[in-house]
């Protein structure tokens, strides 16, 4: 059995469950139902009255992006779930501790730098942002528009922000799950392709050397599934970020091919 646990706001979890349920026993659990309609005890879980033992679960896809810290202190179901995800089952995509890497980009950059070229980065707070050829982005997992400070109208940073050297080039998004991988290249006029109307997404044959470095990074942090953002600048691969809870459906929709979903299915197939 496969379990997909997702926050209600997550778009990926339901689509993933919809695909997997056609091939294997699969159940979608919405995180906000935990403690109300979904219960985790020490032996198994109850989902809207249906009981499952943990021993029957082969894979858990963890799409919980916001952990309710206050509930964690008092709700036994949340405590059991987090323990289950961290150490209770052998295959969790990805474990909560790994997903936390999204929250600490500077720390993640230090690890990425062991495997890839990364942009020169510094942290800023309480400083004017008038540097040219730099981009400004959020330091944490909270989504922000990435761009030149002057284009964003940001002249002063109070909270900590990441300021990085700007590289011109085309973007590559690489998804790796286990031994499977696929990539798309993205051509866009703006710095942040997510907010460019005419961005073009196409399948890209990613060099094996890059894929192998990505796998080495994943092994180091304990990730099973990861989405890497690169800029290819004069044939030089600059790694911008690694996403431990990748929103891969967006890239499949933009490229109009279920490239990543197919690789996820291929990977799951190896366990059945």
């Amino acid at each position: 059995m496969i379990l997909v646990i997702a926050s209600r706001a997550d778009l990926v979890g339901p689509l993933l469950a919809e695909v997997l349920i056609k091939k294997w026993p699969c159940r979608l659990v919405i995180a906000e139902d935990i403690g109300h309609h979904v219960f985790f005890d020490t032996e198994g879980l109850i989902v809207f009255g249906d009981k499952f033992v943990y021993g029957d679960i082969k894979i858990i896809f963890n799409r919980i992006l916001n952990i309710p810290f206050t509930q964690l202190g008092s709700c036994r179901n949340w405590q059991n779930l987090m323990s289950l995800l961290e150490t209770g089952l052998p295959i969790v995509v990805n474990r909560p501790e790994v997903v936390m890497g999204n929250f600490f980009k500077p720390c993640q950059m230090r690890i990425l730098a062991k495997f890839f070229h990364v942009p020169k980065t510094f942290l800023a707070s309480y400083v004017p942002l008038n540097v040219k050829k730099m981009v400004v982005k959020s330091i944490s997992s909270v989504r922000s528009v990435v761009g030149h400070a002057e284009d964003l109208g940001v002249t002063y940073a109070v909270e900590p922000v990441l300021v990085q050297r700007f590289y011109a080039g085309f973007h590559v998004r690489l998804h790796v799950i286990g031994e499977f991988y696929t990539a798309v290249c993205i051509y866009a006029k703006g710095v942040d392709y997510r907010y460019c109307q005419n961005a073009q997404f196409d399948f890209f044959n990613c060099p094996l050397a890059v894929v192998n470095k990505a796998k080495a990074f994943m092994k180091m942090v304990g990730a099973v599934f990861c989405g890497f953002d690169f800029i290819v600048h004069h044939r030089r691969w600059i790694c911008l970020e690694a996403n431990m809870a990748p929103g891969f459906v967006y890239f499949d929709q933009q490229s109009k091919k279920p490239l990543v979903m197919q690789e996820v299915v291929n990977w799951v197939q190896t366990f059945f």
Partner: protein
Amino acid sequence: MGTNIFLVSGSSYVTAFRWHLKQCGVHLISAEELMSVSSLRSLDALSSAVLDCPLGISNHVRSACEQDRNYIASSWSAWMQSLSGQDSWQAFCPWLWLRSHVIKQLSCPVFEYKGVKASSEIMPFYLIENQVRKRQIAVRYQGVWHGDQVSDRLVHSLDRLFCSQLLTVECVLQDGRWCFLQTYPGLPWGHYVKKEDEVMHLLANLFQAPKANVTIARRFRPFC
């Protein structure tokens, strides 16, 4: 003496020990003071910064920021992580410090609640009868353990599980044997409230020891 350590602490008890820390050459930045630090770049240039009870800092920032709470809180949390210089973010994962979660991974006697209640499941917490039970406290700083001699098996298990720069483990005497009570990424300030005289010995050992002689290099500690 003469060290230049900045202790960034989320403990609600720590301000009572500012003078003691100063005596050991440690500058305290409490959670209340964090948001008024004028420039991050000047802090980046510090010789070293140590995180103490980071979950308390996160909670403080989260409760202090009225506007756009999540973004501000996560920004400061992420910055603190970068400041610590550690290659792990586990100190900020509260579920890893749940007593129920830690116990599952330890193979040692565990303190059982008999007529006492913990203040919380998330570390740190203190038993109501904290002051009367016999207690062992050991603190790991930069890979080296100080304080009471707790069991080797427990120490090895904790070294395998956690890589925080500061780590405290507490054991309580129950039915004639030492039992694991709790562990958390920080110093046991709550234990030393009203016992300030006892804290100097621990702090002096932690922050004034010649680290070059006693610290095990990270590359020789693959699980730590």
